[in-house]
């Protein structure tokens, strides 16, 4: 049986990035520039994506603008009828880059801020003046007449400033704001003890989002992503394994989610030599956790098994060492206690971060 086609293609163009956020969800083993797919391969991938029914392409990284062919890829995706979304830190979004993206037909830009306080923003990205550059990028995006999403990643050090973040988004003319608690993968998991918010902080942030949503309804969309650690039920990670998205790593490995490379026992097919349709329809990696057949109890007989699909496989493996386990974010998991243990452990922890390390190698693209 052929599954319904993917809705979105997540194109991780590169792991290179001018920032070094300690919550970055990129893998600890960042891909080198030399291993990245070349332009011709990405162009072919975009053709195949449109053919099999992908509707939206999310260009991300790392910093997608670190690739010189970024706007060329946007133009190609647009010409194929794909909706193009650029996810950027904005620090290199200068006039030239903006003009090129506009000419390429970019549909939407998501611009991330590390904080509303300039000094904190620049400390978290480990990049002086990043805040000012991001403000300038926001102005450029609005001036170009493009819709703007601001993204804020929330953690213990900035959770109290959600109202100010939303106010800044309003002032910058954003149509949409993402208030997204850190997802604890990659560097985020390494820094979990320093990043996890307290339960009180989480409640206050949630309340601030609810208030702003009521006030701004019909004018600004606010999307809110909560941390799993205080939750009773897991998220439907990626809308279910291989149900909606295909993620391509900088080196061309196709995965159901960007963290899937942390899972043992997988060989992810490469877009260099396997067509997207085969990857989606028949590769072992995409079939393995698609649907519910792989589940064990308590998921197997649970009435939410096609709602959250058992949660996140990467989280189950990272926290329990078992790729088939119920996501421990679920209260019904026999191992749910590991979540509370992490919260307790973080309560005494100091705010010392391991910053994402930049790769110092030659840039080829």
């Amino acid at each position, binding site marked *: 049986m052929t599954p319904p086609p993917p809705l979105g293609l997540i194109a991780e163009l590169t792991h290179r990035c001018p920032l070094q956020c300690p919550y970055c969800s990129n893998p600890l083993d960042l891909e080198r520039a030399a291993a990245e797919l070349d332009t011709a391969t990405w162009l072919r991938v975009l053709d195949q994506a449109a053919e099999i029914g992908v509707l939206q392409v999310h260009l991300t990284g790392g910093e997608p603008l670190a690739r010189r062919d970024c706007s060329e890829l946007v133009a190609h995706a647009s010409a194929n009828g794909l909706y193009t979304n650029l996810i950027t830190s904005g620090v290199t979004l200068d006039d030239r880059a903006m003009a090129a993206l506009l000419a390429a037909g970019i549909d*939407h830009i998501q611009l991330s801020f590390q904080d509303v306080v300039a000094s904190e923003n620049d400390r978290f990205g480990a990049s002086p003046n990043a805040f000012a550059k991001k403000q300038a990028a926001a102005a450029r995006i609005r001036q170009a007449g493009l819709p703007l999403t601001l993204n804020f990643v929330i953690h213990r050090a900035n959770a109290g400033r959600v109202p100010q973040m939303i106010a800044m988004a309003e002032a910058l003319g954003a*149509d949409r704001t993402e208030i997204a608690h850190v997802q604890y993968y990659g560097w985020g998991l390494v820094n979990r003890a320093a990043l996890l918010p307290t339960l009180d902080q989480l409640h206050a942030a949630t309340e601030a989002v609810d208030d702003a949503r009521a006030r701004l309804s019909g004018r600004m969309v606010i999307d809110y992503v909560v941390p799993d650690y205080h939750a009773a039920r897991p998220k439907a990670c990626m809308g279910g394994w291989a149900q909606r998205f295909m993620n391509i790593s900088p080196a061309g490995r196709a995965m159901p989610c960007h963290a899937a490379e942390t899972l043992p026992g997988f060989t992810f097919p490469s877009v260099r030599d396997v067509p997207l349709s085969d990857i989606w329809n028949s590769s072992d990696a995409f079939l393995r956790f698609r649907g519910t057949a792989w589940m064990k109890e308590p998921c197997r007989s649970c009435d939410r098994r096609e709602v959250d699909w058992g949660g996140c496989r990467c989280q189950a493996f990272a926290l329990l060492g078992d790729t088939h386990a119920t996501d421990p974010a679920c209260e019904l998991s026999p191992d749910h206690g590991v979540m509370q243990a992490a919260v307790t452990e973080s309560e005494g922890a100091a705010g010392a971060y391991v910053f994402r390390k930049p790769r110092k190698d030659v840039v080829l693209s």
Partner: protein
Amino acid sequence: MNPVPRLSPGHKFRLDRVRGAWVLLGPERMFVPDEHATEVLKLIDGQRDVAAIVADLAARFNAPSEAIRIDVDAMLADLSARGAVRL
């Protein structure tokens, strides 16, 4: 109130040939509208006001415009609350 609805910034309504269905694409979201919403969305062009949209539907589907107006208002309110349409 007789607003002129338009798609929110960054939203595109188009026919997806692979699925044979109309889809509304927006910033990191998408909607697959049902038949009724599809007919309404096709008429949202930033020119027509709600009365004109209702009149068009009433004529084509041979239905009383009062009933259609109620449906269209509810649909637009929902799409607006979800950020897909501006009124």
